[in-house]
């Protein structure tokens, strides 16, 4: 049964590769070079050699266990060790991989010579210290997003990565999601014309709180709610979406402004439960970012707006302006009718309220598209998380780094942290020079 599932998942991964048509040297690989480290040719070579990546998980909470389930379906991965300093979570993970060694201290795990790579799924404030220690110990690293809790930590991780010969991944799964890859290909080929705006939002109606067995564990278990360990909605949710915006624009925003408040969940938390942020690119295009967790009507959407159409990446759908444009003769008659019968004949068409019309949806990817409603705090199925994890396991074997993944994570994490700063200080922030890296274009 398990074996069948493994084969099924492996087939769907191959389908993903086939669907995208990214064969070695293809145009897709030039524009999305991070996919180069996991081409089908490289994967079959690994299979032929029969080698396996020996990986360990640090942080066996909800996301860690989600990764363990995905690892079960990756044939070139072997989970050799698990680490968590919270006994119940370590036990739960051990039930998924009973043969893996168990650690409560990650430093001892890093000393193990039979571990090629580590997967870090701990609270945000531990990402940087653990990643730095793991790279220093000579391990390949796959760390959860966001990159780090502070900008200086981000810089330290980026520098360490540049010095290291080890592979480093941050779980920016949209970079490996077929809908986003296809969508971005279409956006860059001019399908929706010139990008004129970006609209992203993430709405939930849930407090983020977890049950705590005893009060002294509150800050450990509910780490997302406290500033020492969390950047709130920005690092937890916006991080992925800002990466998509930069990917579409091929550059970084210059200025950031926003407002954040605790509007509804006044339960002692320190992070905002309601944020509105605007990022401005040098050409005037803006990202309008909005997130709140006390109303889920609008769900999660990553929209790229062009002068000829709109791509909704989250649904793998695009809409063309022309689909909703009336023919000349119909416009003429409508205008004539409005001029003669309209309430105020002197007002032009802009005066009347323009409510959203029903556009014709076109799909980006043929066949069934896996759509994430954005309501799960753990992760969705087939959202690219399994593919990026598989790519990491490949890198553990080949030693090949995935291009741009660290840089993209660095850029989007900095944008999250700068937005928090802008909201805290209630001012417009210009991207600081000291955090610019050669990868960034403004």
């Amino acid at each position, binding site marked *: 049964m398990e074996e069948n599932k493994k084969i099924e998942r492996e087939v769907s991964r191959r389908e993903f590769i086939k669907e995208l048509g990214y064969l070695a040297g293809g145009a897709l690989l030039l524009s999305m070079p991070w996919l180069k480290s996991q081409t089908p040719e490289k994967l079959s070579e690994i299979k032929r050699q029969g080698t396996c990546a020996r990986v360990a998980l640090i942080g066996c909470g909800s996301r860690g266990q989600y990764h363990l389930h995905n690892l079960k379906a990756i044939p070139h991965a072997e989970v050799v060790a698990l680490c968590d300093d919270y006994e119940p979570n370590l036990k739960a993970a051990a039930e998924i991989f009973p043969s893996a060694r168990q650690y409560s201290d990650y430093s001892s795990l890093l000393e193990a010579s039979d571990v090629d790579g580590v997967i870090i799924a701990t609270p945000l404030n531990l990402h940087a210290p653990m990643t730095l220690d793991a790279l220093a110990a000579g391990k390949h690293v796959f760390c959860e997003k966001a990159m780090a809790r502070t900008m200086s930590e981000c810089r330290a991780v980026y520098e360490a990565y540049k010095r290291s010969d080890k592979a480093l991944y941050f779980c920016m799964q949209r970079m490996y999601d077929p809908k986003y890859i296809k969508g971005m290909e279409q956006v860059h080929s001019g399908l929706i014309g010139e990008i004129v705006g970006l609209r992203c939002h993430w709405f939930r109606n849930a407090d983020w709180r977890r049950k705590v067995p005893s009060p002294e564990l509150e800050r450990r278990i509910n780490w997302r709610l406290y500033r020492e360990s969390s950047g709130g909605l920005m690092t937890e949710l916006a991080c992925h979406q800002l990466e998509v915006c930069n990917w579409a624009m091929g550059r970084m925003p210059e200025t950031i402004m926003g407002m954040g408040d605790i509007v509804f969940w006044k339960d002692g938390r320190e992070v905002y439960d309601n944020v509105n942020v605007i990022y401005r690119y040098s050409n005037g295009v803006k990202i309008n970012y909005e997130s709140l967790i006390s109303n889920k009507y609008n769900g999660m959407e990553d929209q790229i707006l062009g002068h000829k159409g709109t791509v909704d990446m989250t649904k793998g759908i695009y809409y063309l302006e022309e689909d909703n*444009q009336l*023919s*000349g*003769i*119909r*416009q*003429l*008659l409508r205008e004539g009718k409005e001029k003669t019968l309209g309430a105020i004949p002197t007002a032009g068409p802009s005066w009347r309220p323009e409510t959203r019309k029903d556009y014709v949806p076109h799909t980006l990817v043929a066949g069934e598209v896996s759509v994430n409603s954005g309501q799960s705090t753990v992760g969705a199925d087939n959202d690219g998380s399994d593919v990026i994890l598989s790519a990491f396991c490949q890198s553990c074997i080949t030693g090949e780094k995935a291009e741009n993944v660290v840089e993209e994570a660095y850029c989007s994490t900095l944008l999250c942290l700068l937005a928090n700063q802008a909201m805290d200080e209630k001012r417009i922030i210009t991207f600081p020079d000291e955090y610019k890296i050669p990868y960034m274009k403004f």
Partner: protein
Amino acid sequence: MDKNKVIAVITLADVIREVAVFGACLIIAIALNAYAIVHYQTEWSELYTEFGFVLTLALILYVARCVVKALILVLWKCVKLLRRKMKR
């Protein structure tokens, strides 16, 4: 034969005239379509993709012209009737 009964005879000339009038309506509608394409900078393919709409428009123009013509006729008949009564 009843003296008061009016027999309406549609002559070939009538048919030709009506066809010509409808042709004129169609030309007006096509011209409007071309003007709208230029004015709103839409596709020239609308000359045929919107032909059904244009045909309907021509029909509406034709019917409107018929209604106006009928109204004028009725009005004219009423005026004539009134004059006759006044003379008596």
